[in-house]
Structure formats: C-alpha cells, structure tokens
C-alpha cells in the first residue's frame, strides 16, 4: 500500500525527521532532537506537530446537526457554533468505540469532524450523504505547550487568542484558515487547520517563532502522561466508553444515538473491566499486551505503556477488573519480571500553567 504524505512532507525531510508509517500515512516519528527532548520541550515551552493525518470530514446542510446528534454520543446542544467537542462514534451492535472524534462546529450548518487517520472512511460511511472527506485539502499543525500561545502570538495573534475548545477562522496573509483551542498533550495549545497551499509557509513561520518540531513519538508519550486514550489501544473493538472511563462523553438525556441500546444494557448490568492508570516502580516501560496480575492472578492487560520523561518511571494504562481502585497495588508481568504497579488517578503529569500572551 502506498502511504499518504502530508503537505508538509518535504519540510519534515529537510529537517531530518525520522519518518514512520502511521494509520496509512508516512509521518515524522521524531526530529533530530529526539522523542525525549521533544516531549520535555512541550511540557516546558512549546512544540509543533504535523497532525495532517487526522481526518477532516465536513458535514454541511440544514440537517447536519441532527445527523451528528443521531450518530455521536456527546450532546452538541451543550455547545454551539464556534466551539469544539470530544465525542465517540459507537458500533450499533455492541457499543464498541469505532472512533473518538473532535467535532469543530464552524458555522450553524457546517461541522468539521476530525476522526483518527485510519477511521476516516468508516466515519464518512456512518455520517452518510453530505459527509465529505476533505482531508487532502489542508494541513493541521498542533502548537502545544505552556508557551504555545505566547510564541504563536507574534505570527498569528487571532489564532493565539482562541479560547479553550473554541473554534474560529483566522486570516493568514489573505488565506482563510481555522483554529481550535484543542490538543492531545495535556498542555494548553491550539490546532491550526490551514489550506495545503499555505501549509509550508505557516509551518516555517511557526518554527521561526521559536517553536520546535515534535513527532509522533513525543505525541504518544505526552498523551500517555496526560492519561488520554488512543484509538486502537484504549478504545476500539470490544471496548465501550464506559470501560474506558469516559462515561462523560455519553449524553444519556439527548435522545437516541447510534449504539445507545447496547451501551445502556452494559450500564445496567455493570462493566466487566475498567481502564486504570498505573505507575510502576523503576524505569522499565510497560508495553501494550503485558498481563496485569491482581492478587497473583492474571486478570488484566496493559493497553498502552511507556517511560514517563517527566516522572522518569514507567507508566501505563491498563484494563483491570472494575473492583480495582485508586491506591491499590497490582503486579505487571514485564517480559517475565513481576513488577509492582500502583493504581493512580490520571493525569500522571499535570499541565503547566499557560504563559500570558505577549
């Protein structure tokens, strides 16, 4: 299969990025600084990620709101035009999370729905006629970190001023772009959706403003430290929002939505497992699929794990029996070594306070 490339592909190669296949795209894993340095730069200052591999599915028309309300778990009536919302698309048969999505409500009758790269086609299919995949038209640059807005302010003041989970247009030298106060690092920041034709110049300006590039390696360690789920690990076939500890994404009082009945049935009978955050003694990174032992019995499994660059120890997200509670100590089987792990309340690392705009 031919990998898709970002509008910023040439820029990444010029920067000496290590590229990696991800969700059908060829994207930067890390730049010359390396994953750990990029991670720490995001916690201490600011970094820029190319996340053009995320999909943009545009849903327009007088019935767009009703169609999204019927398809997705969260309630768009809680927000309005000019806001963004995190939501799930469920399997109608078993309430598995088919995708986790941010919806950018751009105008009354225009929604830009942002699925994970490999799920874009199924989201288009689920949203039906009038949902158009416009991923190829734009690049998305995520600028994240406590200094993100302060540094971005020098080149795009309107974009830098966007509120958290707000969405707005901004002008880039006469080209209309979009910005949302969203991200996937646990830090303050924004995401810029810019037409492919100007992506290179926006990226260059962002780096020129003193924001260093970061790759998917740092994006993964940052989201893990923030306790945020990744589709294919914490969400996916056989995993419901309730098992993932994301019940707040489901609006039970908005009427019917896809997957509601099987999810309601699970809520009624109680979940069989639950996602928990674990810190392990020592530096060794937990890895997906490693067994979790509770009272000596293998009864859970790691969904994501790595080394926390900030805590300098192993951290993990894992599915465990629902009775396992915060403060409990369980055991991880790390390639044959049994290591104690403590159940903690996520995030593993709190966000740094955002720096004021200049």
């Amino acid at each position: 299969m031919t990998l898709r490339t970002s509008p910023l592909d040439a820029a990444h190669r010029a920067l000496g990025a290590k590229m990696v296949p991800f969700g059908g795209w060829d994207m930067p894993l890390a730049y010359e600084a390396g994953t750990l340095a990029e991670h720490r730069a995001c916690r201490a200052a600011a970094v820029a990620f190319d996340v053009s591999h995320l999909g943009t599915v545009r849903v327009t028309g007088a019935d767009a709101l009703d169609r999204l309300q019927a398809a997705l778990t969260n309630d768009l009536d809680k927000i309005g035009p000019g806001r963004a919302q995190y939501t799930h698309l469920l399997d109608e048969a078993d309430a598995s999370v088919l995708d986790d999505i941010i919806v950018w409500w751009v105008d009354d009758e225009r929604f830009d729905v942002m699925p994970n790269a490999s799920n874009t086609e199924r989201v288009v299919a689920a949203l039906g006629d009038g949902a158009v995949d416009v991923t190829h038209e734009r690049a998305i640059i995520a600028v994240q970190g406590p200094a993100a807005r302060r540094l971005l302010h020098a080149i795009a003041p309107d974009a830098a001023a966007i509120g958290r989970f707000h969405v707005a247009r901004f002008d880039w030298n006469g080209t209309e772009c979009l910005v949302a106060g969203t991200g996937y690092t646990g830090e303050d920041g924004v995401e810029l959706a810019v037409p492919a034709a100007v992506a290179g110049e926006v990226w260059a300006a962002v780096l020129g403003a003193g924001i260093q590039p970061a790759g998917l390696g740092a994006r993964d360690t940052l989201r893990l430290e923030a306790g945020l789920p990744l589709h294919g690990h914490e969400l996916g076939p056989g995993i419901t929002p309730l098992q993932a500890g994301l019940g707040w994404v489901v609006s039970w009082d908005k009427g019917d939505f896809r997957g509601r009945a099987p999810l309601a049935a699970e809520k009624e009978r109680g979940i069989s497992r639950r996602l928990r955050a674990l810190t392990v003694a020592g530096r060794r990174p937990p890895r997906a699929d490693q067994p979790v032992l509770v009272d000596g019995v293998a009864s859970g499994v790691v969904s994501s794990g790595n080394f926390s660059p900030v805590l300098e120890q192993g951290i993990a997200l894992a599915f465990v029996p629902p009775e396992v509670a915060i403060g409990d100590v369980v055991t991880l089987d790390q390639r044959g070594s049994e290591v104690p792990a403590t159940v903690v309340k996520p995030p593993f690392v709190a966000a740094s306070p955002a720096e004021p705009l200049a």
Partner: protein
Amino acid sequence: MNVPDELRYSSDHEWARIDGTRVRVGITDYAQDALGDVVFVSLPDVGAAVAAGAGIGEVESTKSVSDIYAPVSGTVVEVNADLVDAPERLNEDPYGEGWLCVIELGADEAVDELLDAEGYRTLIEG
C-alpha cells in the same frame, strides 16, 4: 553512521572491542539510532556464562524493546552499572560511555565469526 575501524561487529548490531581475552561489548551507532531514545537497560550478571548469539540483556527505547546478544562466548566479568540510571549514554556515546559489559573469552573461543568494520558497513548500508 559511525563504524570505528578497530572494532568487530555482530550481525545483531553489537560491537566488540577485543583486548587479548577480554572483549568489551556494546551496541552500534546504527542500533542506537534505529532504537531512538533509550530509557531502560537490563544487563547480565557478573559471573554469568554466556554463549555467542544468546541473549544477555535488553534495551528499551520510547518506541521498542530489543534483545542484546552476546557477540562471543565466555564469562561476564564487568558490567556498566552506570547505564541503569543513565541509559541515555547508549545514545550519546555508544562506543564509549555507553558500553554494556566485558566478556572474558572462554578457552578455545574465537572471534572469527564477527564482522570487521567493512563487513558491518556493507551489512547496514546493503
């Protein structure tokens, strides 16, 4: 990639610095670059008998786990315990401060199977 001429190499990307019967072992520049940022190293025990090609430890980066294989047979006589708290040395100085262990060659053991620098360069550039 840096491939020092004076070292010998395994096809598993370990290097061996041979000094009489003592063989200092580490991972190559190519290996550390492919791994990315190393965050954890497990080392063999001093005194352990090891066989060429057998696993003697593990290196974990933010993205993957790799086994380390003994490039020669013999007995582990020294390990670089500093790596436990400073595994980044494997990235920063793979042929120096990032060394892993020293193996004392067993009697009648040879190092003929190992590649020379030119052979290793051909392997990684091939």
